[in-house]
């Protein structure tokens, strides 16, 4: 293992390596909660976060689902945006110029409607030097084609990862859905098929009803539940996946405060993604990074590696 030491400033070393992507700290946004980076640039110093994870990209622009698309629930929110995005070509034309100027790694999240499309988008992203790595979405609960269909069956998950791996010359992170009986089966399948890292979890499928109109509160009827309400489920699944695979795991699900992120690191996540909390507090990721650093100082640790996977059973 590479020797680590405190940074020159005497502060703890927060940097981590995810599948060859060097992050100055382990905190990044969850895809779909941070636009293409520039939306939040007026509200936080985006260079301070570990990486920028883009909105999920598809081969062609995608319009997304009808409205209403969001509903608040107890300590969470349901969304059925339906992967609205500008498409990979317009991403390169209109969104990449901003990201190019930002001194932090860019991870492009992407998906396809078909297996062939997954391969084609992977190929195009491969050609973009400014993208440090990609996150493959096989777990969106809000679209009929693609998305979760590939993420709930180990054979289908392995097939799409194998194909993407063939078409991609960059680090490959695969994002898993929690809407399965045993997430470790899927995790092992994608690892064997060539995933360099795993992020888990995506949102949990949920529903809400307006009791006055007796209609679903989302036009799509169901949506993905995110926010603090799902954190214990996410933490349990990250713990399970960390035990099941050798590749690094990125913990996602309801992280709002520094201590939430620290829980995920303790169970073995090498990095975390912050989602819904960005909507509530645009500074949330900065607060979390600072909180992790303070925790390390308080605990007398000079390297985040001493915290990661330190769960006592």
């Amino acid at each position, binding site marked *: 293992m590479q020797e680590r030491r405190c940074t020159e400033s005497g502060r703890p070393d927060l940097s981590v390596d995810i599948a060859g992507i060097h992050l100055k700290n382990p905190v990044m946004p969850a895809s*779909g*909660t*941070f*636009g293409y980076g520039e*939306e*939040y640039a*007026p*509200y936080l110093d985006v260079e301070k976060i570990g990486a920028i994870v883009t909105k999920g990209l598809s081969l062609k622009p995608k*319009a*997304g689902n*009808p*409205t*209403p*698309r*969001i*509903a*608040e629930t*107890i*300590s*969470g*929110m349901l*969304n059925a*945006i339906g992967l*609205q995005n500008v498409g990979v070509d317009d991403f390169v034309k209109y969104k990449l110029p901003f990201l190019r100027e930002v001194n932090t790694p860019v991870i492009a999240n992407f998906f396809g409607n078909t297996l062939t499309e997954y391969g084609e988008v992977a190929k195009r992203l491969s050609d973009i030097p400014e993208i440090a790595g990609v996150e493959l979405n096989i777990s969106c609960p809000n679209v009929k084609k693609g998305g979760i269909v590939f993420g709930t069956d180990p054979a289908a998950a392995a097939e799409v990862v194998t194909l993407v791996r063939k078409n991609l010359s960059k680090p490959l992170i695969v994002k898993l859905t929690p809407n399965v009986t045993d997430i470790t089966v899927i995790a092992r399948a994608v690892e064997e098929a060539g995933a360099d890292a795993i992020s888990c979890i995506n949102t949990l499928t949920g529903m809400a009803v307006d009791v006055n109109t007796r209609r679903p509160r989302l*036009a799509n009827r169901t949506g993905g539940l995110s*926010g*603090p309400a799902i954190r214990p489920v996410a933490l349990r699944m990250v713990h399970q996946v960390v035990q099941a695979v050798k590749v690094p795991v990125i913990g996602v699900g309801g992280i709002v405060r520094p201590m939430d992120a620290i829980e995920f690191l303790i169970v073995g996540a090498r990095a975390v993604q912050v989602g*819904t909390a*960005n*909507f*509530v*507090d*645009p*500074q949330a990721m900065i607060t979390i990074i600072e909180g992790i650093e303070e925790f390390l100082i308080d605990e007398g640790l000079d390297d985040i590696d001493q915290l990661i996977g330190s769960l006592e059973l």
Partner: protein
Amino acid sequence: MKNYKTIVLSNQEISPGYFRMRLLTPGFSEHARPGQFLMMRVQRSLPPLLRRPFGIFRTGFMPGDCEGMEPKEYTEILYKVVGRGTSIMADLHRGDRVEVLGPLGRGFDAGDPGREKILVGGGIGLVPLYMLADSLKPAGSVRLLMGGRTRDDILAVTEFERLGVETYVSTDDGSLGEEGFVTQVLERKLTKYPRAMVYACGPMPMLDAVYRICRKHSVPLQVSLEALMACGVGACLGCVVKGAGHTEETPRYLCSCKEGPVFRAEQLEWTRLGLEDGYCEGCKS
């Protein structure tokens, strides 16, 4: 655009179920334009989880509490208590801490100075029209048509009058002003002032009727929409509305928070706008 960690200066019930909240916001007013909004984090603990969007009613300066003290720059919102978030807000007092992100979104265009300006407000939809009236007034006459279900829904009319705005009030039950819909008043005014332009904010059925009347009279219309939203900055894509030319086959969504909340009527797909799209009178949370 900034996230203000600030305090409540005052919070008063101005009509049953309607409140006026004044927030300390140094530096806000130089950026705020008529029609823009803010996102408020109601309290630090959960729930509620998400911020709530509110139209900016006005900004200004109030004198310091004691002689010699600096004037305080404030932002004012009017809101209706409709759910958990606004109920918590109604209990806030002077000195309570809140967080405010703003000013956000695109506001109203001043429009052609040669045209009569007619503002149409329905209930809490009146909120974004005050700063607009204030900005339009120096260039000529401004008329406000204000509608509500009952007299309780008619807000802040005297403040518009103080700006020198001619106001016309109508209520569905006739408890204040003329009995009937505000759109009937609009129909009459447009007959009298055919070279007018209209700015409207209110519940979707009202905006829909306003749109049809303006189209009939061939006058330009700008509307301020209210939509469910999580982020307010264009990241979540939860608040989209159907843009002109939208069909199932060729969907065309516009982001209310970033491309709106004020739209020119021709930007929107009116035949497919409707209550099922989740619009609400005021913030229904």
